[in-house]
């Protein structure tokens, strides 16, 4: 049985344990009395907050129960926020900030930083969180001078060919500061990009900066193969390079999140909510199994894992993250032996881009607002709201601002989540969804287990086919009108002209500049790069952790040179269709 099969058993065992404890609380008088005592202590400690109208409210709302069995069911089955099994929240307090997204993109050859939360006067600026998207060539590990990529340089994100580009990108930021964190959305070539980031930080602040680096790199290979198609090496070497990186960062960079286990792209590719949650969790458990097999202690890598989910409008989203958090905690504790910090399903949520449509696109504001409410009900740890104009253009300033304001209105202006942090959780309806979703996720786990575990299922294209099938069904339902989409297949006004927008494109001469910089770098390092690549290739062949050699190689080699050499050694990813 793979670890996933054991996770299924552990959840079932835990559910039975809860039922047994409920019975015990009712029959064992001392146990019941202790529970009641604890319950009264908890209630007594909950602070009272006041709404602007003066209405007093508890910071945390608890179910109105005073019977030991029900108390046991709540405390053990759900747990208080910040307590195992974390159904109600990963932390004791929900510390949601209204908006945390910060975008950066390279335009006109200079890094332009757009910091949306600065526009909200009340928003307290705590941390510089710089989120970086990369252009297509970088995402595929190739250089800006490659055949036919010229028009894609700088499109959709920054072009990174060399460590010098990385230095330029983060110019002006104190990378070692406790108030700075970088987030990099890249998976296929993530270890190379990670090495470039470290090298760039060292160039500017010296070697002592390395343990201080904070941030996240996506590095999720499984979801790339399952949904997003940005994979450059075959699966097994991809996973090996990832593990090499994780082994390095967990040891040398204790504040870094080396992987963001992402359901978002699975959801956007058209999966059902349950598939999204199930594949994300099972991918997470597969990574945990891999890292543990490498000998990295679970309490070292466990707290450095984070998750990223899509939140759409289907009813499952009422509890999708809540259930995910619980399954993760039980699996990590009972199968992997993880301590409390390694049991946390730390979650970033983004509203669904797929749910937004071009027809009468202003309705997208309402869709996104509803999705935000669902995300907050799930006690997500951070959130990004999409722009209403996304279906037909790269988001513009105006609609980015409105999307950010949507969060602020819900969290600051409205009282829904402001006073009582779990205002909308725990209803009988939500519990019904929790039970149904948990059962469906476990069923998915069983299917993956039957196929031989996550890796075997991925190679068998299982998740990929399931996602494609669900996507097809979704489109069919829209087509047949079974799935109402307002303004599209219902209450349509007939005029869905979208505003003609002027897109910000990277100018040709800046693309040319990128190619020229690369040529200079390659020329300058021609001799050294050959030696560094040979050394890297030898390290890969030897089977040892090749991240140290990668760190050396990025000093003198470009992304494309490194990718090319690694592909000679381990092969290229063969697309799945």
């Amino acid at each position: 049985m793979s670890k996933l099969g054991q996770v299924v058993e552990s959840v079932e065992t835990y559910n039975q344990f809860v039922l047994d404890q409920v019975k015990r609380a009712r029959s064992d008088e001392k146990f019941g009395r202790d529970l009641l005592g604890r319950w009264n202590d908890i209630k007594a400690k909950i602070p009272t907050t006041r709404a602007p109208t003066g209405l007093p409210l508890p910071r945390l709302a608890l179910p109105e129960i005073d019977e030991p069995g029900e108390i046991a069911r709540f405390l053990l089955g759900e747990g208080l926020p910040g307590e195992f099994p974390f159904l109600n929240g990963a932390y004791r307090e929900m510390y949601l900030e209204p908006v945390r997204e910060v975008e950066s993109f390279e335009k006109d050859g200079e890094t332009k930083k757009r910091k949306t939360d600065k526009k909200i006067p009340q928003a307290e600026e705590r941390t510089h969180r710089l989120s970086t998207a990369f252009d297509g060539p970088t995402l595929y590990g190739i250089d800006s001078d490659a055949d036919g990529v010229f028009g894609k340089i700088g499109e959709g994100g920054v072009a990174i060919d060399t460590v010098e580009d990385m230095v330029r990108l983060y110019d002006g930021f104190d990378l070692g500061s406790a108030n700075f964190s970088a987030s990099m959305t890249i998976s296929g070539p993530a270890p190379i990009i990670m090495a470039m980031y470290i090298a760039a930080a060292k160039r500017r602040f010296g070697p002592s900066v390395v343990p201080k680096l904070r941030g996240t790199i996506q590095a999720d290979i499984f979801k790339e193969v399952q949904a997003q198609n940005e994979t450059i090496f075959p699966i097994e070497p991809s996973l090996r390079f990832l593990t090499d990186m994780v082994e390095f960062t967990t040891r040398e960079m204790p504040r870094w999140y080396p992987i963001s286990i992402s359901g978002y792209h699975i959801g956007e590719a058209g999966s059902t909510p349950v598939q999204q949650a199930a594949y994300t969790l099972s991918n997470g458990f597969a990574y945990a199994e891999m890292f543990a097999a490498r000998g990295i202690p679970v309490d070292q890598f466990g707290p450095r894992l984070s998750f990223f989910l899509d939140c759409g409008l289907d009813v499952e989203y009422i509890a999708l993250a809540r259930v995910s958090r619980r399954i993760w905690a039980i699996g990590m504790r009972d199968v992997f032996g993880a301590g409390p910090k390694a049991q946390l399903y730390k979650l970033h949520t983004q509203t669904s881009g797929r749910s937004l449509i071009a027809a009468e696109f202003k309705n997208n504001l309402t869709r996104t607002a509803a999705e935000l409410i669902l995300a907050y009900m799930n006690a997500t740890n951070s959130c990004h709201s999409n722009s209403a104009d996304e279906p037909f253009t790269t988001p513009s300033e105006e609609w980015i601002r409105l999307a950010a304001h949507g969060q602020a209105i819900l969290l600051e202006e409205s009282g829904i989540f402001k006073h009582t942090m779990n205002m909308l959780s725990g209803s009988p309806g939500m519990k019904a969804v929790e039970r149904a979703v948990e059962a469906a996720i476990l069923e998915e786990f069983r299917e993956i287990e039957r196929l031989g575990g996550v890796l075997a299922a991925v190679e068998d294209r299982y998740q990929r086919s399931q996602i494609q099938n669900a996507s097809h069904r979704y489109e069919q339902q829209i087509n047949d009108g079974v799935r109402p989409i307002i303004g599209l297949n219902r209450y349509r006004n007939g005029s869905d002209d979208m505003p003609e927008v002027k897109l910000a494109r990277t100018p040709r001469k800046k693309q040319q500049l990128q190619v020229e910089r690369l040529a200079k770098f390659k020329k300058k390092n021609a001799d050294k790069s050959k030696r560094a690549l040979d050394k890297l290739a030898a390290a890969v062949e030897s089977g040892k952790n090749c991240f140290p050699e990668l760190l050396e190689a990025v000093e003198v080699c470009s992304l494309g040179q490194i990718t090319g050499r690694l592909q000679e050694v381990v092969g290229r990813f063969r697309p799945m269709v």
Partner: protein
Amino acid sequence: MASPIRILTAVPICDGHDSAINTINLEFIRHGIEVVYLGYHRSVGDIVRAAIQEDVRAIGISSYNGGHIEFFAEVVALLREKGAADIKVFGGGGGTITHEDAAMMRRKGVDEIFFAGTSLDEMVKFVHQRYGKPRAKRARAKSSDIELAHKLTEIEDKKKIRNSKFGIRNSCKTRVIGFTGPGGAGKTTLIDELVLRFLNKDRQSRVAILSHDPSVIGEGALLGDRATMINSQNDRVFMRSMATRGQAGGLSPATHDCLALLARSGFDYVIIETVGTGQEAMPFQKNGIVDQTVLVMNPDYGSRLQLQKIVMLDLADIVVVNKSDLQRARTAHTEIEQRLEQNRRAQCLIDTVAKRHRDSGVDKLFGLISTSDKSKRGKERKSHEQARTGR
């Protein structure tokens, strides 16, 4: 009846958005169109090379990652440069391509850009109307690959009926190797891995691949082998994808003549791949064209009794058990070995894991098929048997 329209579809380099094109491909083939699908993350050079070799009427590009103005224009320009301006270009990209962009792309020679909200019906109708008319008389081919591609089209569309002399080879240099086996055994991956070895063996040799996919009954066909081939996107590889167009047995009515033409066209190796076949299929007769036949098996063929029914096991020169990392592979090897012993012929049995880079089993297979010297092949076989006893 007119021959089906052949088009090529692809997603540009650095773009993995294949969901739209997958849906569109299926709609095309349901409406009688043969689609050669090249896959995602494909360069301008790969797309143009494939379009020329496949001699398609048009290229449909689905682009969602930006840079489309340049990319489409480069495809059009390269087609013209290569002397293949009769291959047209169309495409789309949902909301990522603006009306302004599309106008510029049309000026640069793109036939049509579809926007978000275009129905599948409209696209099918466009392809039928725009690319469904018979071809005009074709100009003299600018390169030997184009000439070959045109001739293959003539054969496939039965404009020229070849007589029997076409079955005779006049080049002894060319080795023709036939691959067959059940669907899902990994034939395409195996061939692509062998191509990598052919290309690495020397700097000049050229390889031709004739690959087959089934036609949907009375309709189009999805010719998708290229989408998973990564090493065969190379100027030294000439690949042609054929639909079976109603013929059973894993090949097309035109296969024999096309193969004969390829065998005379100066390639060092010609590889022919059948569609996934069943028990009864005997696609390769000993007709003087195919030098060697390779049967690629999946370890999951069912019971031992099933093996008795597979006719190709009697005929194949080499039997490959691919996916030999699967649990059942060892059993499969033993059972197939026993089955082959009944034949009392010099057949080879090789275990491969084609998905693995530099797999030693694929190396062995390459040794067997790249050596034309028969005695040497015998030796290979012996050493292979010794290696097997060591298992």
